[in-house]
């Protein structure tokens, strides 16, 4: 790290001293007369808040180092500015003009990752041959705005003070803060003699977040060892035993109770009889290890590891599934793609960081999920991403946003920007996603990031070997994820950082891209991979990566060998840092130099941290040769006591999670309501998001997120994992939070929706694998845990019925926010089901845009009377609606999917669309306008159960329904093929661009405009 010891302290704003050793400042702005798009966008935003005035912008580069005037001018002219549209100004305080307007600058706090600064440093080193330190910022010049208004605007829309500082006037420090040297201290934490209360206090105050039982288990272990734990050991145990890493709630022993005869969904007490891991004790249902007895049990039944339940016994038609290659054990679940290749899928959440710093939170969320895929088997190549966000409505009034929360519009736009900037730079197409709006996400936005990868089948497993080197690749280690992203604040005072700011980080995609290129090259060597195992550094950093890889062998780790972002880190900090963009590999000594050559060619840093394997199977941590910690692997991985938890199903309590009503009125008549629904944020076009993502990089996105010439909403995407093959992989999601009043019903609907989405683009439903991703309010409340148990049990039932094995999953169980006034805002139970499946020949893939006038629209599936959970039910006005929740039928659901899929495979379906949010009419309108056609629909023809109203037929959201376009000439053949499932012809596509229903007509352009209406707000 470059230091500038000769800069005088406290020398004011002097930027250029005679030795050229101070901080230089360069401003780059657009040449006069040319547009400044960023300034214009900010001006629009400023004006939209009701403030007149305008903003222009400039990029600011602060460069600390020994550059002479010529070198500085070369850097400014050749590197920082382009001579055609920009000018660079080297700032000189003595000659700087004072500007008439307000000037504010936003700069990252020291220690916060600054990718542009890293780029400039590297480029100056190469082009000028000098090592310098760089920091960047942005300058905003306000015209016609007073200082306090400008400041308020910047704080609200531009800067985030968790990671950035706002400066008045041009900012130019005399020197940069640098790290201080570190002198080793080995801290012991005496706990052998503590009583329960003191153990609990220790857990809380040291931010260990361990339960009393867990603290006692640690106490027992160290009493046995006859010594006190060292700080680094305690931190490692806390990390390894954290909810995030071991899913304590989902793996808990659960005692579940429910009232008799209440609620709409089934009783679990009778429903789960005889199932693995389930037993009745009195009136309570006992479940050992919830995850293992439900989600994993479904997969294990389907793949033949355990006997299937009677309802899903193996038959000649339904033999055990043989295409699951790795489930629940690796960083992502892996299934067979073809004879030579496998595909894997991982979905993660990054909720808390995204609430505090949405841009960095979302970017590091996708970055982490990409590393999960890179760390699967012997490394998979990421080929597609999917992102689903649950946020509060963007038009939420300012006063309704609780203190401590960012405005939801800012949250969403910054989340999107974070995914965009990271995903696009990585060259991974974001091909699918969704956004769901609910006020209760104001303090807890949900950011689900999913990544799909491809790898050779023979590289699905990897194992470290004793004697292998522990090799770290990629980014350097800083205090990220420990005591805040800002190393300066952590140095000032240990406990000073706000409670959650430790979660906030900024990523640097280029570091990860270099690492990815290096790893794939090392994997694909003609003689085989240059490593024996690989994993990512996620939560827990080196401690969890090395701990996991060294689970059977043990390891010796020289923590002082890790490259650091700045000086001064303690061994504990190096060990548990969650700095981004790092992976750990297990490398034979003979392969080290070849690996190093590859890494150097890609500019990816590599360090050798030690060796796997130790005499007694322990993990030894060293610092310049001194032992600073030693951990027994068996205790580390198996010592966590099994918690037991109480769960209560309370339908009355859970009714609060029913979909929130809105004040929005349903438009007049059926077609008026249709327009309202098309413009509803949950339904309306997400084109403004999708088009910011490069959803086509790698050239393999064969069915894109937007379909047809008018870019309608596709149900799922299809990618081509192997360029030489016409076999496709479809990627889709299901989410049914509207039905959260009973998570059992909700979960089945989400599985059904995921299957429907995949089937609509041509997926074989017998080749679909799914993932669960639970986001819940605190499950310390047994009533929330009761809902979670119901969802998990529905995962079992759904997976068995649809024969869709779960291959991976994740949970985030603390999504609630307490406002200043003490009000608790809990998110509704949210379960994202993500799925991917095989499209045998992409040539037979299907899209949702209507193709041809004269075609018939066939609705497959039965419409139920209940409209609970539908968007229509949240609108005010119209007739009274049946508020029952529609329930997924586990016989008809899979049968409908199978029937539709075989029609698509036979080429009999011209377009197909899932009927979900908004119901049948929304689906029909979307199909019509996406293809530039009109449609005529007769609601009375819709197959429905008795009691279903016209509104239910039009706008109800019963599951398992598909809308298909079929040529009139194919009609007889299609109807014959559908004879065992509920279906009917409900309308015709027309050349005339009009949508006709129940005797009323509306122009198709009007409907399309309604659907596009949200894009305006985001342009």
């Amino acid at each position, binding site marked *: 790290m470059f230091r500038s010891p000769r800069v005088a302290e406290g020398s004011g704003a002097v930027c250029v001293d005679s030795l050229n050793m101070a901080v230089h400042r360069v401003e780059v702005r*657009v040449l006069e007369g040319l547009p400044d798009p960023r300034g214009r966008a900010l001006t629009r935003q400023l004006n939209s808040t009701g403030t007149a005035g305008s903003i222009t912008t400039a990029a600011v580069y602060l460069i600390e180092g020994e550059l002479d005037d010529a070198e500085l001018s070369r850097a400014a002219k050749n590197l920082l500015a382009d001579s055609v549209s920009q000018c660079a100004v080297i700032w000189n305080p003595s000659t700087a003009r004072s500007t008439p307007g307000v000037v504010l600058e936003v700069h990252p706090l020291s220690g916060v990752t600054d990718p542009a600064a890293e780029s400039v440093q590297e480029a100056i080193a190469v082009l000028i041959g000098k090592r310098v330190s760089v920091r960047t910022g942005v300058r905003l010049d306000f015209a016609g705005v007073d200082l306090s208004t400008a400041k308020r605007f910047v704080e609200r829309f531009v800067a985030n003070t968790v990671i950035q500082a706002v400066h008045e006037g041009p900012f130019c420090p005399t020197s940069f803060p640098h790290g201080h040297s570190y002198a080793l201290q080995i801290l012991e934490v005496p706990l052998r003699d503590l009583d329960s209360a003191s153990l609990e206090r220790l857990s809380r105050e040291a931010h260990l977040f361990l339960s009393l039982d867990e603290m006692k288990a640690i106490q027992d272990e160290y009493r046995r060892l006859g010594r006190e734990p060292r700080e680094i050991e305690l931190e490692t145990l806390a990390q390894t035993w954290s909810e995030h890493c071991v899913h304590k709630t989902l793996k808990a022993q659960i005692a579940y109770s429910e009232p008799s005869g209440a609620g709409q969904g089934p009783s679990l007490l009778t429903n789960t009889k005889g199932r693995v891991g389930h037993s009745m004790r009195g009136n309570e249902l006992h479940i050992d290890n919830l995850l293992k007895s439900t989600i994993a049990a479904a997969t294990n039944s389907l793949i033949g590891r355990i006997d299937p339940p009677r309802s899903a016994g193996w038959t000649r038609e339904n033999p055990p599934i043989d295409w699951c290659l790795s489930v629940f054990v690796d960083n992502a679940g892996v299934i067979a793609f073809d004879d030579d290749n496998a595909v894997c899928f991982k979905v993660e959440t990054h909720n808390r960081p995204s609430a505090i710093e949405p841009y960095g939170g979302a970017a590091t969320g996708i970055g982490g999920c990409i590393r999960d895929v890179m760390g699967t088997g012997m490394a998979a190549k990421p080929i597609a991403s999917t992102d689903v966000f649950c946020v509060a409505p963007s038009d939420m009034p300012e006063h309704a946003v609780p203190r401590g929360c960012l405005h939801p519009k800012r949250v969403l736009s910054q989340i999107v920007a974070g995914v965009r900037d990271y995903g696009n730079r990585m060259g991974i197409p974001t091909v699918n996603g969704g956004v769901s709006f609910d006020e209760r996400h104001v303090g807890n936005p949900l950011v689900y990031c999913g990544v799909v990868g491809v790898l050779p089948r023979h590289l699905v497993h990897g194992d470290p070997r004793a004697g292998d080197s522990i090799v770290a690749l990629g980014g350097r280690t800083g205090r990220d994820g420990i005591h805040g992203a800002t190393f300066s604040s952590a140095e000032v005072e240990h406990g000073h950082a706000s409670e959650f700011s430790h979660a906030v980080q900024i990523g640097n995609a*280029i570091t990860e891209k270099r690492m990815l*290129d290096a790893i794939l090259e090392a994997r694909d060597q003609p003689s085989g991979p240059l490593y024996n195992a690989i994993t990512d550094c996620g939560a827990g950093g080196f401690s969890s990566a090395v701990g996991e890889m060294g689970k059977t062998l043990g390891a010796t780790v020289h923590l002082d060998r890790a490259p650091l972002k700045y000086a001064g880190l303690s061994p504990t900090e190096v060990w548990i840092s969650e700095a981004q963009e790092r992976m750990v590999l297990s490398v034979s000594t003979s392969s080290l130099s070849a690996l190093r050559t590859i890494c150097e060619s890609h500019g990816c840093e590599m360090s050798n941290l030690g060796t796997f394997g130790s005499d007694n199977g322990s993990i030894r941590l060293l610092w310049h040769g001194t032992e600073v910690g030693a951990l027994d692997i068996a205790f580390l991985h198996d010592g966590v006591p099994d918690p037991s938890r109480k769960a209560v199903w309370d339908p009355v309590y859970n009714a609060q999670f029913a979909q929130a009503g809105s004040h929005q009125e349903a438009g007049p008549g059926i077609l008026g309501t249709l327009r309202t629904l098309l413009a509803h944020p949950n339904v309306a076009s997400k084109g403004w998001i999708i088009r910011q993502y490069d959803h086509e990089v790698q050239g393999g996105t064969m*069915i894109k997120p937007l379909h047809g010439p008018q870019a309608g909403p596709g149900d799922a995407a299809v990618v081509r994992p192997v360029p030489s093959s016409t076999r496709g992989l479809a990627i889709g999601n299901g989410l049914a939070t509207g039905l959260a009043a009973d998570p059992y019903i909700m979960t089945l609907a989400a599985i059904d929706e995921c299957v429907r989405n995949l089937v609509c683009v041509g997926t074989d439903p017998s080749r679909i694998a799914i993932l669960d991703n639970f986001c819940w309010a605190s499950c310390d409340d047994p009533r929330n845990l009761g809902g979670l148990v119901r969802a998990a049990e529905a995962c079992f039932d759904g997976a068995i019925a649809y024969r869709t094995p779960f291959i991976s999953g994740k949970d985030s169980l603390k999504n609630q926010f307490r406002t200043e006034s003490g009000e608790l805002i809990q998110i509704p139970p949210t379960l994202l089901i993500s799925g991917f499946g095989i499209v045998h020949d992409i040539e037979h893939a299907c899209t949702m845009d209507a193709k041809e006038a004269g075609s018939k629209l066939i609705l497959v599936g039965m419409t139920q009377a209940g409209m609970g959970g539908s968007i229509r039910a949240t609108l005010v006005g119209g007739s009274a609606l049946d508020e029952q929740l529609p329930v997924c039928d586990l016989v008809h659901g899979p049968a409908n999917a199978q029937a539709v899929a075989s029609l698509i495979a036979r080429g009999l379906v011209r377009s197909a669309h899932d009927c979900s949010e908004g119901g049948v009419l929304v689906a029909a309108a979307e199909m019509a306008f996406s293809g530039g056609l009109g449609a005529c629909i007769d609601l009375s023809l819709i197959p429905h159960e008795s009691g279903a109203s016209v509104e239910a037929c039009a706008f109800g959201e019963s599951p398992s329904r598909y809308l298909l376009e079929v040529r009139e000439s194919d009609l007889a053949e299609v109807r014959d093929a559908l004879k065992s499932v509920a279906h009917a012809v409900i309308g015709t596509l027309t050349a005339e661009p009009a949508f006709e229903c129940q005797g009323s007509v509306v122009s198709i352009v009007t409907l399309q405009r309604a659907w596009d209406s949200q894009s305006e707000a985001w342009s």
Partner: protein
Amino acid sequence: MMRALVITAPGINCDRELAEAFEGVGARTDSVLLETLRREPSRIDQYQLIGLPGGFSYGDDIAAGRIMAALMRREVYPALREAIARGVPMICPCNGFQIAVQAGLLPGPHQGEGWPVQPADSTIALAQNEKARFFDGWTRIEVPSNTRCVWTAGLDCSGDDALLPSAHGEGRFVTSQAVLDRLDANGQIALRYSSDDNFNGSMGAVAGICDSTGLIFGLMPHPERSLHWMQHPWWTRVDPRVRSAREPLGRRMFQAALNHVRGACVGN
């Protein structure tokens, strides 16, 4: 056999598609890191086609293509200049275009003048899109009838499925009126966005240009993502007979360049 070179670097992420495009028309393709070429520029001499792919070279954090262009100006520029003198067509989509205009490769010397020994200063910028936002979508394009670009001259862009994909945040073509007029008069505008589809606000709706030999082609769209019909955004509604009768637009550009090299060889 024809050999093609794809120049890659950290952050470049469309190298595989570009290699697929060259290979699809029958050229054996190598992807080589810029670092390697800076050490051994003479490696460029063995290739008959060159591609500078899209992506975010070195992160593109300062501005798109800035660092890669600065690196290329030193060791690699002379070898590329010689390649052009040998008649090697070079395609630079997206980030490649952003790099080429800053590396002194485009628009190149005036008609009839030789390449300068030192790379020329930029006269063209690809600035932030008008709407200050990344945009991914397929748009209609046109080829000016007077273009001398070997990649696009005579390309049939008729038919309502004649689209090319773009995906960038910095693609707004900016230059002086004088340069624009000269490019236009000299047939160096190789590609324009159709008037309704100038989504990034480019001057003259310019989507791509070539040097005065017509060999170096820089463009913001990605023809290497238009090699198969299934990459087209609404291929499912294009009649299979039409699809089998006509190659997608992007592939035809690569075919044209290959034909040019073959023709040049035969001519010699």
